[in-house]
C-alpha cells in the first residue's frame, strides 16, 4: 500500500562537507519535485527522504541502513568524499540497494550496487594534462594535493602518465598538505621557485575543498598569474569560486565534465529551473549537480523501462541507459557502472564562470586505471552472466586474481 516511491538523499548538511553537499541535496529535491510535476514514476509520486550524515563517516553507514531498511528507499543519491562512499558500500551491497555517487574520484572500485556518475581519473585528470601539454606547452609539473586517497591515486596515475610522455622525474614536484591547510606561504613560494627554472610550469591541483580558498589567495598575493604558472584544479568549480575573490584567479583552469557556462538549451533550462527552485538568481550550478541530474534521469528511465523499482531489475535496466547530459550530448551508463562524459577544460573568468577552452568528445569512465600495476588487467562488467566488478582479463577470472 505504498503511496509514494521513496528516494534517499544522503548528503551532509552539517560539518565540514556541508559546504559542498548541501547544494546536492537541494538539486535532488528539485529533480524529484520536477519529476512529480511530470506525474512521478510508474504512476506514483516520488518522495525524498533527506537525512544528515553530518560529515561523519560511520554516521553515513548508519543513515544508509536507515534509509534502506527503515524508510524503504528504493534508491539513494548521496555521498561526496570517497570515504563516505566506502563507508556505505558494504551496506548497499548487503541490502542490495542502489546508490548514485556524483563526485569525481579516484576510481579503483566498481560495485554492483553503486553507479558512479562522477568522473574517473581518465575523464578529468588526464585530459587536463593533455590540454596543458598541447596548448600551454607545459614542461614542468607540480602535482599538489591534499594528503588522502583521491589525490594520491590521481597523482600516481598522473606521474606514471607524465613519465610515459617523457617528462623527467626532476620536472615533477609532488606536494601533499593536510586537510584544511590554511597557510600556503611556503608551498606557493616553492611552486614559484620550481616554476622559475626556465621551463613552462603548471600546477595540477587535487587540493580538497576548504583548503582551496587560502591556496588561491596566496597564489594571487604572491603574484603567480595564470599566464605564468597556470593551475588546473579538479575540485574547484563554480560553487567554490563563488566564495573567492576571482580577480587574481582569472585564467587558472579547471577540468570538469560540465560548466555552468556550457551553452546548450538543456543547460539553460536547467539553470532557469534551479534559479526558480532556489528563488535565487545568483545560485551557481556545478559538475556534481549535473552528475545527479544525469544519474536521476537514468534512474527514472531505468525504473520506467523495468516497470518496477525492484533493485535487481533496476540495476539491470540501468546498464546501457542513455540520457541527455547538460553539455549537449548523451551520457550512457556503461557496464562498469561508470558513465560516458565529455571532458571540458575551462579558464576562470572574473565573473566566477568558466570560459570553456576545450571540450572533448564522450569519454568512457575507466574504473581500473591503466597506469597502476595492480589494476591494469582488471575490468568491470555487470552485464549478466559475467556480472563482475573486477574481472581479470589475463587470467579470465572474476575476483581480481592475476593467476
Amino acid at each position, binding site marked *: 500500500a505504498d503511496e509514494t516511491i521513496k528516494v534517499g538523499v544522503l548528503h551532509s548538511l552539517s560539518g*565540514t562537507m556541508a*559546504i559542498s553537499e*548541501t547544494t546536492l541535496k537541494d538539486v535532488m529535491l528539485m529533480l524529484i519535485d520536477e519529476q512529480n510535476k511530470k506525474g512521478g514514476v510508474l504512476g506514483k509520486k516520488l518522495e525524498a527522504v533527506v537525512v544528515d550524515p553530518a560529515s561523519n563517516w560511520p554516521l553515513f553507514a548508519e543513515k544508509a541502513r536507515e534509509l534502506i531498511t527503515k524508510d524503504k528507499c528504493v534508491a539513494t543519491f548521496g555521498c561526496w568524499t570517497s570515504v563516505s562512499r566506502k563507508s556505505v558500500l558494504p551496506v548497499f551491497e548487503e541490502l542490495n540497494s542502489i546508490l548514485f555517487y556524483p563526485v569525481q574520484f579516484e576510481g579503483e572500485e566498481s560495485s554492483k550496487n553503486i553507479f558512479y556518475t562522477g568522473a574517473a581519473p581518465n575523464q578529468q585528470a588526464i585530459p587536463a594534462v593533455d590540454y596543458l601539454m598541447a596548448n600551454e606547452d607545459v614542461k614542468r609539473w607540480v602535482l599538489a594535493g591534499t594528503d588522502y586517497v583521491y589525490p594520491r591515486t590521481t597523482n600516481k596515475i598522473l606521474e606514471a602518465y607524465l613519465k610515459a610522455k617523457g617528462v623527467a622525474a626532476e620536472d615533477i614536484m609532488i606536494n601533499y598538505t593536510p586537510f584544511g591547510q590554511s597557510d600556503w606561504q611556503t608551498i606557493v613560494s616553492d611552486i*614559484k621557485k620550481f616554476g622559475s627554472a626556465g621551463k613552462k610550469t603548471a600546477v595540477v591541483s587535487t587540493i580538497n575543498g576548504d583548503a582551496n580558498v587560502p591556496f588561491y589567495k596566496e597564489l594571487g598575493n604572491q603574484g603567480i598569474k595564470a599566464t605564468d604558472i597556470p593551475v588546473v584544479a579538479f575540485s574547484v568549480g563554480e560553487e567554490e569560486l563563488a*566564495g*573567492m575573490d576571482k580577480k587574481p584567479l582569472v585564467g587558472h583552469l579547471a577540468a570538469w565534465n560540465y560548466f555552468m557556462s556550457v551553452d546548450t538549451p538543456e543547460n539553460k533550462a536547467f539553470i532557469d529551473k534551479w534559479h526558480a527552485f532556489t528563488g535565487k538568481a545568483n545560485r551557481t550550478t556545478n559538475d556534481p549537480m549535473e552528475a545527479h541530474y544525469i544519474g536521476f534521469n537514468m534512474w527514472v528511465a531505468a525504473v520506467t523501462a523495468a516497470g518496477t523499482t525492484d533493485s535487481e531489475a533496476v540495476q539491470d535496466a540501468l546498464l546501457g541507459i542513455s540520457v541527455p547530459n547538460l553539455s549537449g550530448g548523451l551520457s550512457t551508463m556503461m557496464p562498469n557502472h561508470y558513465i560516458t562524459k565529455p571532458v571540458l577544460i575551462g579558464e576562470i573568468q572574473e565573473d566566477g564562470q568558466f570560459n570553456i577552452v576545450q571540450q572533448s568528445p564522450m569519454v568512457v569512465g575507466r574504473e581500473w586505471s591503466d597506469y597502476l600495476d595492480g589494476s591494469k588487467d582488471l575490468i568491470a562488467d555487470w552485464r549478466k552472466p559475467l556480472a563482475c566488478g573486477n574481472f581479470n582479463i589475463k587470467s579470465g577470472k572474476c575476483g581480481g586474481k592475476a593467476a
Partner: protein
Amino acid sequence: MQAFLRIAGLVVVLLLGGLTSAFADAAAQSKLASEKFDDIEAGVSALATSGDPQASAVIGALADGKLAFDPASKALYYQKGSDTFEGASGSKVAAPPSGLKKVKVNNRIRRAIEAAQGALTLMAPDPATRLAAADAVFKSHDEAALPAIDKALSAETDTGVKQAMERARAAVVFLSSSASPADRVNAANLIAGKSDQDTLGLLQSLPNDAPQAVKDAAATGVKSINETLMLWSGAQNLWFGLSLASVLLLAAIGLAITFGVMGVINMAHGEMVMLGAYTTFVVQELIRSFAPGLFDYSMLVAIPLAFLVAGAVGVLIERTIIRWLYGRPLETLLATWGVSLVLQQAVRTLFGPTNQDVGAPAFMTGSFALGGLDITWNRLWIVVFAGLVFAALLLLLRFTKFGLQMRAVTQNRRMASAMGIRTNWVDAFTFGLGSGIAGLAGVALSQIDNVSPNLGTGYIIDSFLVVVFGGVGNLWGTLVGALTLGIANKLLEPFAGAVLGKIALLVLVILFIQKRPRGLFALKGRAVET
C-alpha cells in the same frame, strides 16, 4: 587607462614611422575576428606591430573582454562604457550589427596581449606604466619588441625605468639567436645583476644550442643568483613563520582572555572568529551595493563592527549562560560546545553553507620585494594588525582600572565583589572583550582563509595549543607561544613537508610540555598553587 593606451599607441605609431598600410591593418584586425586561439594570437602580434592607430584600443578592449566581431564581415567592434566603436576606424557606431561574437581569450592570448601592451606602452607618459611595460617585455622577451624598446630607451629620462628597459632589452638580446654571442654574453651579465627568481628563470631558459660563451655567462649568473637566493630563502622562511605566528596570535589572543584569564574552556571561540569574518563579508556586501567607491575602506569599517558584533554576542552568551557556570570550568566546555554548534548552524542557515566572497582592498593585494624577500601586503598588514591588537590589549590589562578589576574578578570572584567590584559587569565585559578580539581576528582571517560556517573549527585547536603552550593566563606567553609555534612550523615545513612538519611540531609540543608542565611562561611559586 584607455586614453593612455590610445596616446601611447599613437606615439608608437609615429615613432615606428609610416611603414604601415591600410591593407595590413585590415589583415591584422580580421585575424582577431576568429574563434581559433591560434588565429587570435597571431592577430594580436600582428596588430601590435602593424602600426594601426587603433591597435592599442583594440588590444586593450580584448584584454578587458570587451572585443567582439561580426562573423559575417569579420569586422571588429569594441565597447567602451555603453558605447560601441568600430575596430577599424575607431568611430562610434549607433547600432552595432546583430550576432556579434566575443573574441575569446585564454592564457596564451593573455600572454600575447601582455607582450603587445608592453611594447605599446613603453612610451607612456606615466613612468609607472613604462616600468610595467618594461617588465612585461622582460618577461615576454619578445624579439618583436626590440625596435620599440630601443626607441623608448633613447627617449627615457627616468633612471629607474631606464634600468628596467635595459634589462628588458638585455633579456630579448640574451635569448635572441640572431644577436652576436658577445652581445648575448653582455646581456647575460647585465641580467644577472639582479638576483631574483624571474632572472634565474630567464637565465635558465637558455636553449641548449646557444653558443658556449653565452651558456657559460648564463651559468655564472645562475650560480651567483642561486647563492644569493639561498641566503634570502632562510630569511623568507622566517618571514613566513612570523606571518603564520601573527595569524596564530590573532586567533589565540581572544582565547587568552576568555580561557586564559577567565578560565572558561571556550569552545565557541572559533565561532566568534567566524562572526568577525562574516561581519566583514556583510560590510563588504553593503559597501559593494551602496558605495562601491569606498570598497578599499571596507576593512576600516569592518574592524570596529566585527569587534562590536562578536563582542555583543559574547556579552549575550556570558549573561545568559557562562555566568551560571563560574567555578565549574569543565561545564563551560559542554555549554560552549553547544553554543558553537548553534552558532555554526545559525550562520549556515542565514548565509548558506558555502564560502562567502570577501575581497581584498587594494592596499592588501599583491606583494613587494624587500631585498630578496617577497612580502605579500595582506600578510604584512596582518602582522602589523596582530601587533597592534596585542599591544592595545596588554596596555588595557596592565594599566587600566578595568584591567585590574578583570584580573581580580577572575581570580577570586567572591572576594572581588566584596571589594565593591561589580563582578557581573566585569565578567560580561571581559567575555565580551575576548569575543570582540576574536571578532577582530575574523576580520584578518577573512583575508587569507575561507569565510564559511566552519571557519572557526579550523582555528580552535591551534588557538588552545598556543595559549596553553605559552602558559595559561599570561599574555606574553601567548605572544611568545604564537611566535614559537609559527616559526617552528615554517622552519620544519621545508624539510619535513607540511604534513610531517605539523606532526613533528605537535610531538615537539608534547615533549616540551614535559619540560615545562605549565607552559613556556609558567607562573611559579606559591601564588599559583592557591
